[in-house]
């Protein structure tokens, strides 16, 4: 096959035009895998933030505010939203910092430390989402019930015999509902961040093995 032999000659002559990476460039490359996972954690957190923001904007209209006003929730809604967004932005910033830091790391020990840090940030973030939603849920509920009992008393007090037992029953149902909702949120986060955290953990174990 003269064609292939011709090619072989050409192949050799082209060796000089191959790219050449420096020691440092290669050195950095062997740590890149974790960095791309952390990059995804950052990207997902931004996407998630945008998702909730868009959902909020879509939901909020005049009716929404009217209802909220009716329940005396205006101040609480504004404050909880502002605080919620601020904390979320803070976490996005943390994720970004983690990504930058892991990108700049060039030792196994440093990388391991950063992987642990990233995992911790993600866990704190999920805890914040869960506690935050539970808290706003409970407070909103409290206001709604209070509002309800007030108006009920004013209009049809006689028909309403909300005794202690009924209150306990209602509270129990609400708490169970809330717990199920929290469970679902938790599951959702386990799914999106869990996969990435698992991979990070695998990298960590690999690094640990190398470190022995």
């Amino acid at each position, binding site marked *: *096959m003269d*064609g*292939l032999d*011709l*090619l*072989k000659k*050409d*192949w050799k002559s*082209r*060796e000089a*035009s*191959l*790219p*050449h*990476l*420096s*020691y440092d460039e*290669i*050195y950095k*490359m*062997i740590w*890149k*895998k974790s960095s791309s996972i952390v990059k995804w954690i950052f990207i997902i957190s931004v996407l998630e933030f945008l998702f909730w923001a868009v959902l909020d904007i879509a939901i909020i209209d005049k009716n929404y505010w009217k209802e909220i006003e009716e329940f005396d929730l205006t101040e609480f809604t504004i404050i909880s939203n502002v605080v919620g967004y601020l904390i979320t932005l803070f976490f996005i910033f943390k994720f970004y910092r983690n990504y930058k830091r892991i990108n700049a790391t060039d*030792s*196994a020990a440093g990388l391991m430390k950063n992987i642990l840090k990233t995992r911790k940030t993600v866990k704190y973030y999920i805890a914040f989402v869960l506690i935050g939603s539970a808290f706003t849920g409970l407070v909103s509920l409290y206001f709604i019930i209070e509002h309800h009992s007030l108006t009920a008393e004013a209009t049809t007090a006689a028909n309403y015999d909300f005794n202690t037992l009924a209150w306990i029953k209602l509270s129990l149902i609400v708490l169970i509902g809330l717990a199920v909702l929290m469970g679902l949120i938790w599951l959702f986060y386990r799914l999106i961040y869990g996969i990435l955290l698992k991979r990070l953990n695998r990298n960590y174990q*690999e690094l640990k*093995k*190398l*470190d*022995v």
Partner: protein
Amino acid sequence: MNKELEHQFVTNLEKHQNIAHKICRIYTNDQASHNDLFQEITIQLWKAYPKFRGEAKFSTWMYRVALNTAITLYRKKKRGIQTQDYESVHFKIKAEEYDDEEEQQIKLMYDAIKELNDIEKALVFLYLEDKNYKEISETLGISEVNARVKMNRVKTKLRTILNP
């Protein structure tokens, strides 16, 4: 200990990086994919490095691991839509470089190689690297006879592509 291993690995890879670049040249069509494949090869080599105990030469071991990486990656990609931009195939080999008939033939050969499948590319690559059948069979983990048979098939296939 770990630092030492790292240093040893990077030094070796820096010295032999041409192997990986040449594999990238056979398997990819543009600079971005070239860099991606190179990085993936580096990561796979580094992951496999603790198992490399120096019973083989670094370059021999590298041929095996790097080619396997390219083959696996290429196989995964093939499941998607596979359209090749034949203009971009020669991003490194500019058209004006081919001014006579011989060079024109070389250009056609490179085109033809791009149409081969993952294993066939590996065979051509090892052939171009002047490897004998024993080395080819060891690198790809097939028998020597099988390597010979496959190589002949590749040559026939290339001929068919060039003279349809």
